[in-house]
């Protein structure tokens, strides 16, 4: 009789562990959902369709203090001057702090890899840029 009782308890203990493991897996999965789900970065006021010539940039009535151009060779221009990544990280927050609307202009050569452009948008937003206005250069 006692022997039978022990037999009944052993699988129950194993199943409780299994339940805990499965429960933990479901919790981990639910917690990692935000890192699996696609979200979005706004290209809210894209002027891509409107701005075909650089001269038309003058018509934008904003107080944009940050204008970045990404070249195909990997160099970055900040307000028409080539800067290093370190200088960019130092200057962008200072320039944005002087801006009221905190908008930034971003353009890139056609050959630039999309991922690099997204990283730049991400960088600008993380440094406090409100909107990153995507510009299309003529050509």
């Amino acid at each position, binding site marked *: 009789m006692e022997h039978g009782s022990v037999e009944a*308890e052993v699988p129950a203990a194993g199943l409780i562990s299994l339940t805990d493991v499965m429960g933990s897996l479901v919790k981990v999965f639910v917690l990692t959902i935000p890192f699996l789900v696609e979200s979005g970065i706004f290209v809210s006021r894209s002027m891509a369709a409107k701005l075909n010539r650089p001269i038309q940039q003058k018509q934008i009535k904003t107080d944009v203090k940050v204008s970045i151009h990404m070249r195909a060779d990997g160099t970055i221009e900040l307000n028409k001057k080539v800067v290093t990544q370190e200088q960019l990280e130092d200057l962008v927050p200072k320039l944005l702090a002087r801006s009221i609307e905190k908008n930034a202009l971003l353009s890139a050569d056609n050959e630039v890899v999309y991922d690099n452009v997204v990283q730049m948008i991400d960088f600008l937003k993380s440094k406090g840029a409100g909107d990153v206005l995507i510009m299309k250069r003529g050509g």
Partner: protein
Amino acid sequence: MAKAKGGEGEVAQAVFNLANIFAFIFITLIIASKQMFQSTSVEVEVPKAKVIEADLEQSIAVSIKKDRTLYFKDKQVDLQTLTQLVKQAQEEYKSKNPDAEMGEQLVVIRADKSVDWKTVLDAIDAVKRGGSKRITLAVIKRTT
């Protein structure tokens, strides 16, 4: 004693059932996760970003694969067709939501991270020509 043993058996059975239910939920979540959280079945490796701004529910998906092929939802299209389809979708959205402004439905550009910027920019142009005012670039949240 026999009654107690029967009770233990019932508990074991209940725990076993619970474990099965958890396993079923977990497997279902894994299998369905992509379909649950994506508005299209087009496979694209989107970039990662720290800053997340938009929830992509009820958005129109425009995908760009690594080979630069363009998709409106699940249908392969060219740029001109994309503009027309976006325009139609925005008109449908407006007719279903009279209070909404024309072009208010969110369009999400799901581009593979390895494509060139011009391809993405051309798609954004086409979507804007279709009257869309709200456009986002799809990203996945970066952990570090």
